[in-house]
């Protein structure tokens, strides 16, 4: 049994409970503690996804920066895709390219793949070990190195610090 994994999951679930109920009444808090504890014990003991997270100040600061970078990317590329949609000529140049990531931890890779999908214009289709297959609405290069730089250059450095 992985104590750290269960503890992290417990904290996460309890925070979600607080956000959902929105009160600090004693009965609600106690119920939340019991539910979060039970769920963390049932689902956390056989997995290790949350076990490698280490909540250091540096990691939290980088998470915040990451959130800002991600939001900015989402806005920028959303406008880009929206302009493509309203353009009468429909200027798309789609294709599926392969990129490689340096990230090792499963959590970091999951966040990376989801971030790539969230920024419009790129869509993660499949992941095999360290290779990600990306549907790109405007293919600029087929070379794995250059495409990696183009698509995940900004995310990877930050995620490397956060999840190692």
């Amino acid at each position, binding site marked *: 049994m992985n104590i750290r994994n269960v503890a992290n999951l417990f904290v996460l679930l309890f925070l*979600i409970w607080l956000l959902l109920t929105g009160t600090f009444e004693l009965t609600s808090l106690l119920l939340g503690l019991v539910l979060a504890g039970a769920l963390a014990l049932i689902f956390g003991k056989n997995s290790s996804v949350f076990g490698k997270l280490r909540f250091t100040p540096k990691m939290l600061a980088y998470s915040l920066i990451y959130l800002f970078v991600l939001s900015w990317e989402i806005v920028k590329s959303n406008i880009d895709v929206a302009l493509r949609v309203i353009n009468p000529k429909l200027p798309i140049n*789609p294709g599926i390219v392969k990129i490689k990531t340096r990230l090792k931890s499963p959590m970091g890779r999951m966040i990376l*793949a989801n971030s790539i999908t*969230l920024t419009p214009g790129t869509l993660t289709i499949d992941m095999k070990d360290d290779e990600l297959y990306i549907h790109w609405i405007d*293919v600029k290069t087929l070379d794995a190195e250059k495409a990696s730089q183009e698509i995940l250059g900004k995310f990877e450095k930050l995620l490397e610090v956060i999840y190692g």
Partner: protein
Amino acid sequence: MEIREIIGASVTLVGSIFIFLGGLGIVRMPDLFNRIQAGTKASTLGTILSLIGLGIINPAWIWKLLVIVFFVLITNPVSSNVISRAAHFRGTKMTDKTVADLLVESENKTREE
């Protein structure tokens, strides 16, 4: 407080335009993968902006609205990824404009081995 409410309503309006463009994209795009790109992503930003705009109008609701925003941010990429992988697995036809499909090549290679 009128100004704050008008700002919130304007943010919601911008978000709703993105949702509309998402619907337009899903109709106009020529093949499934481009539809996923245009449809689900534009509507993600649209949803986030609309909900935050409503949160600016009703500050007491902001936490619950942020929970919904967080939830949309987590689930949306997962569902579009699941659908796109299933579609690729089925061999959905891609548009003639497609430049390359490296995933099919790698699958063929593993099949030959």
